[in-house]
């Protein structure tokens, strides 16, 4: 271990020095003090993945249709551009994401606007926005039960940007000097038709949502609501507070009055409507040695029980090849979505520059399915020693019974190397 640490230290010294060689403490303000109306920045990245496949797993059949493939290599190139144009009190903002993916099965490419919206700030208290916007609500790190109008995130990579929905919204802020320091109200309209937001839910509805934010003493509280429409109506609450200087507590709760769930029972699709509760409780703790611990417990009534998931996976196991496309479609609608069951535990440990190895930041992320005992483990290493570059090496290991969520996945493990350049 000592030799490895020493080797890594030596390797960091081999990296070319950054821009300045001498003690030059100057600052040319001209570039920053008078910003132009137009700004553009973003990142470009390349990623390589190697997956070790599990030919015995039920979902291998669903994805690779009785192939004899043991591994899958995939390379991805992505470009994300963020642009802003300002004129007076108005701003046009856009984020465009494009990527090209190649593996042994297919070449696919896509490019779309994640955001494209116009914002007008009447004054500091009032802002109106129209267009495609990714509004992210909630305090949870890996999951957000109160993320009523956003796309689900990847719990293993929760900081990735996500595509928004077309909305019209506003933001009203009021502050005062008392215990209730800040009140902010954010109403949103989200139309759904065959051409607009068609993947949000049932078409032909004008959905309304709202968030009321309160800073009461030192506690953040949000009250959230989504109207009945393309999705079942729901209400929610979240909070975040510091219990100590280095310890933060957060939580979310959502109540969905009439969630419709589709189950595959004895080969037939059955629908049921339930009143669902979904909630999350989490902690973030920073140690004196700069280790960050994040732990979250997540429960969702809308998730499948262990028996229900095993039933589906057994049916996949025994299905004919002709039946697999339909099962794949049923799975995508529920069973094979990430974290589709009821109770999960998330733990992330991140250490800043251990053993004084400059610019190396390792982390470990673990997700445990508390219903079936399956798990995923993701160690990663992040290197940021070269300005504007980020190199990340990450592995994912999956474990659990054959008919468990993580055990049934088509792959046993995956290793990924990603290089990102920000500009």
């Amino acid at each position, binding site marked *: 271990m000592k030799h490895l640490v020493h080797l890594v230290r030596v390797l960091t010294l081999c990296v070319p020095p950054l821009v300045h060689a001498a003690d030059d403490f100057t600052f040319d303000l001209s570039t920053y003090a008078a910003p132009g109306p137009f700004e553009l920045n973003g990142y470009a990245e390349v990623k390589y993945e190697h997956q070790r496949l599990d030919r015995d797993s039920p979902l291998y059949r669903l994805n690779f249709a009785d192939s004899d493939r043991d591994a899958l290599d995939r390379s991805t190139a992505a470009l994300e551009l963020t642009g802003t144009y300002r004129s007076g009190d108005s701003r046009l903002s856009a984020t465009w994401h494009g990527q090209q993916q190649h593996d042994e099965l297919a070449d696919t490419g896509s490019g779309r606007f994640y955001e494209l919206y116009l914002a007008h700030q009447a004054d500091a208290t009032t802002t109106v926005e129209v267009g495609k916007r990714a509004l992210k609500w909630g305090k949870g790190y890996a999951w957000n039960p109160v993320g009523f109008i956003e796309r689900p995130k990847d719990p293993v990579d929760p900081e990735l940007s996500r595509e928004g929905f077309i909305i019209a919204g506003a933001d009203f802020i009021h502050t005062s000097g008392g215990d209730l320091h800040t009140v902010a109200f954010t109403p949103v309209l989200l139309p759904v038709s065959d051409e607009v937001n068609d993947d949000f839910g049932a078409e032909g509805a004008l959905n309304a949502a709202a968030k009321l934010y309160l800073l009461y003493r030192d506690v953040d509280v949000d009250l959230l609501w989504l109207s009945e429409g393309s999705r079942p109506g729901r209400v929610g609450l979240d909070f975040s507070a510091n219990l100590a200087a280095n310890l933060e507590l957060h939580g979310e709760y959502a109540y969905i009055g009439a969630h419709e769930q589709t189950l595959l029972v004895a080969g037939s699709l059955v629908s049921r409507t339930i009143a669902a509760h979904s909630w999350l409780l989490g902690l973030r703790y*920073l140690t004196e040695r700069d280790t960050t611990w994040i732990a979250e417990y997540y429960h969702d009534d809308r998730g499948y029980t262990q028996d229900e998931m095993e039933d589906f996976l057994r049916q996949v196991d025994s299905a004919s090849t002709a039946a697999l496309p339909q099962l794949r479609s049923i799975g995508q609608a529920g069973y094979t979505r990430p974290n589709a069951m009821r109770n999960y535990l998330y733990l992330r440990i991140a250490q800043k520059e251990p053993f004084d190895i400059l610019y190396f930041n390792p982390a470990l992320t673990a997700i445990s399915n508390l219903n079936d005992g399956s798990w995923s483990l993701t160690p990663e290493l992040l290197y940021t020693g070269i300005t*504007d570059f980020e190199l990340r090496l990450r592995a994912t290991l999956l474990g659990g019974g054959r008919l468990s969520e993580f055990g049934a996945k088509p792959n046993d493990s995956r290793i990924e190397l990603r290089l990102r350049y920000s500009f």
Partner: protein
Amino acid sequence: MTRIIVTLILAALTPLAHAIEANELLRQVDRNLQPESYEMYRKLVNIEPDGKRKEYVLYSVKKGGDRVLALFLDPPSEKGRSTLRLGDNMWLYIPNVGKPLRITSLQSVIGGVFNNADILRVDYAAEYDAESVEDTADAYVLKLKAKNNTVAYDRLVMQVDRKHKVPVTIEAYAASGLLIKTLHYSQMKDFGGGLVRPALLETDSPLYRDYKSVMIYASIKQRDLPDEVFSLNYMGRVDDLRGK
């Protein structure tokens, strides 16, 4: 007997008189360092033991004693991130994440010797009580004690330039007496609007041997902003304040 009583009363009141003067000096230091409400551009430089540098450019706005909002302008990997401080509360906004998360004053969003409390510094008088002031030949020496245990440093020993009433050095101590870091102010500069203060702040720490962090102040201007700017909902729009 009367003389003894008067002497005793004067002896009891003398520390109180110095304490009052000490706090008044501390308030002067705060106003000489920055207006109560301002906008500011500065560069932070982290110098690693091997000589490599990482540079950050920040735009900050402040209002009153304890409200500060800072926006990263450079490098591109940090651009668009903002941090907000309201009293003892701090939040970090990352554009991709799209919502603010609570952070602590002891963390450092940029690494290096400066922590979040240094970057989002509020008035010293908002966080510290001046316990005493010593009048030496070269400087005033202020001894400050944190008002509560959420403040980043338990005690400060501040050497104040006699002429300009600005800090020259500040030693920051933990409650255990451990020296956490030393701040060195230098390069007096006229920022306009009657503000003459050091333009360079260097810091070193026995806890981060061979590391050094430097803050270069380029522009500090009086600016009054609405209270609503200092709220979570505004953290994604801080850039709209610049150039207006």
